[in-house]
């Protein structure tokens, strides 16, 4: 589903020296998998996850999604691909100028979906994340957990196959974190989503991920398969 081949990325630092953010990363993530990437801040996990939707373009290597190379397509083609990849963030990144409903409608609006269809889809999504009653609130009026639910609904609006999670639970309290993780697991079961998440919270990653890659200084040092995870969820 997602295939990294020899991904290398350097950043030019303020002092003029090069910083090797990613070096020679090769990795394959399967469809329907929850794949975790852990590592210290600055290790490169944030850069790596952003190569999946082209927010970062590697200097070398390929990122293949369903065999399409994300690193070598035109901006127009990339935009189209991005609609197949939802993303959620530590800071939620909702539009403060739009209501809950308006935020979830946003990706559909930019995709040119017609009004009635947007209404219908937004209602379904907000019910799915259990926030339909908050539809006319603004993000500023919601708790962190509610904001992340809105962000998840928004990320899923265009029916993506892939969801990227960038420290999505790091700003939440333990209880809210659990409810968000449960939601992600439910969405994977129901929609067959492939989820790639980065986090520095090892315990949380062990709880939901099928496999966890550890990244240090831009290199993957280990990939660990987590056993019995599915049993734990259904129990």
């Amino acid at each position, binding site marked *: 589903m997602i295939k990294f081949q020899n991904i290398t990325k350097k950043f030019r630092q303020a002092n003029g020296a090069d910083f090797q953010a990613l070096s020679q990363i090769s990795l394959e993530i399967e469809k329907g998998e929850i794949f975790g990437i852990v590592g210290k801040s600055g290790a490169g996990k944030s850069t790596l996850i952003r190569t999946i*939707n082209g*927010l970062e373009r590697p200097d070398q290597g390929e990122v293949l999604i369903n065999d399409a190379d994300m690193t070598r397509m035109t901006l127009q083609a*990339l*935009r*189209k*691909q*991005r*609609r197949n*990849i939802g*993303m959620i*963030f530590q*800071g*939620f*990144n*909702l*539009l*403060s*100028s*739009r209501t809950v409903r308006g935020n979830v409608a*946003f*990706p559909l*609006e*930019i*995709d040119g979906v017609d009004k009635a269809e947007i209404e219908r889809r937004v209602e379904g999504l907000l019910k799915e994340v259990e926030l339909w009653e908050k539809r006319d609130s*603004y*993000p*500023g*009026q919601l708790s962190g957990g509610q904001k992340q639910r809105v*962000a998840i609904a928004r990320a899923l609006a*265009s029916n993506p196959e892939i969801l*990227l999670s960038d420290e999505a639970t790091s700003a939440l309290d333990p209880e809210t974190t659990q409810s968000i993780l449960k939601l992600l697991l439910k969405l994977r079961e129901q929609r067959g989503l492939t989820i790639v998440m980065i986090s520095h919270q090892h315990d949380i990653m062990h709880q939901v991920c099928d496999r966890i890659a550890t990244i240090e200084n831009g290199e993957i040092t280990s990939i660990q398969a987590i056993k019995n995870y599915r049993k734990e969820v259904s129990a």
Partner: protein
Amino acid sequence: MTLIKLLIQPTLETIYMVVLSSLFALAIGLIIGILLYLTPKNGLYPKPLLYSVLDGVVNVLRSFPFIILMILLFPLSRVVVGTTIGTTATIIPLAIGAAPFVGRVVENALKEVDDGTIEAVVAMGATHWQLVTKALLPEALPSLILGMSLTVINIIGYSAMAGAIGGGGLGDLAIRFGFHRFQTDVMIAAVAVIILLVQGTQWIGNFAAGRILAKRSS
């Protein structure tokens, strides 16, 4: 009574000048500001050459004392309006004088928009146009409104100056009566109306921005 009669026409002239030149300045300034925001080397749509030119032009125009800019733009007024005297002719230098300021106001308002929000919108596959119109401008609206009321207040001040070189309006009234005829009462009345216009503008700006912020957060 005669004083009030004397004030009505110039007040309407000032409002006419200020409203129209503000609208033109906003139209030009929005385009300038959006380009200044998008086109720097590390911007969302890097066009470094365009940015340097625009940035330079804005700085040069903003360095001109307004009254000199007005005299320099007289030929343009003659081409567009057919005359260099009167309120309509004044609109052109007022708008062009204020547009670079609006450009900076817009640029700064857009810079305040949260980077994470922008990243999220880009990640959704938005085009630059969609990013600007559906995300950046709405997110920056309260700052834009406050910046715009600042602009209108500047234009009110400029329009009074324009009175000194045949622009009409309240500045013209104050200078003709107060300075040339020593009728201090008329001058004070004219200044009082200008103060009221400035206060009113600021109040409307604060009110509108405050309403939007309150709606979004409480």
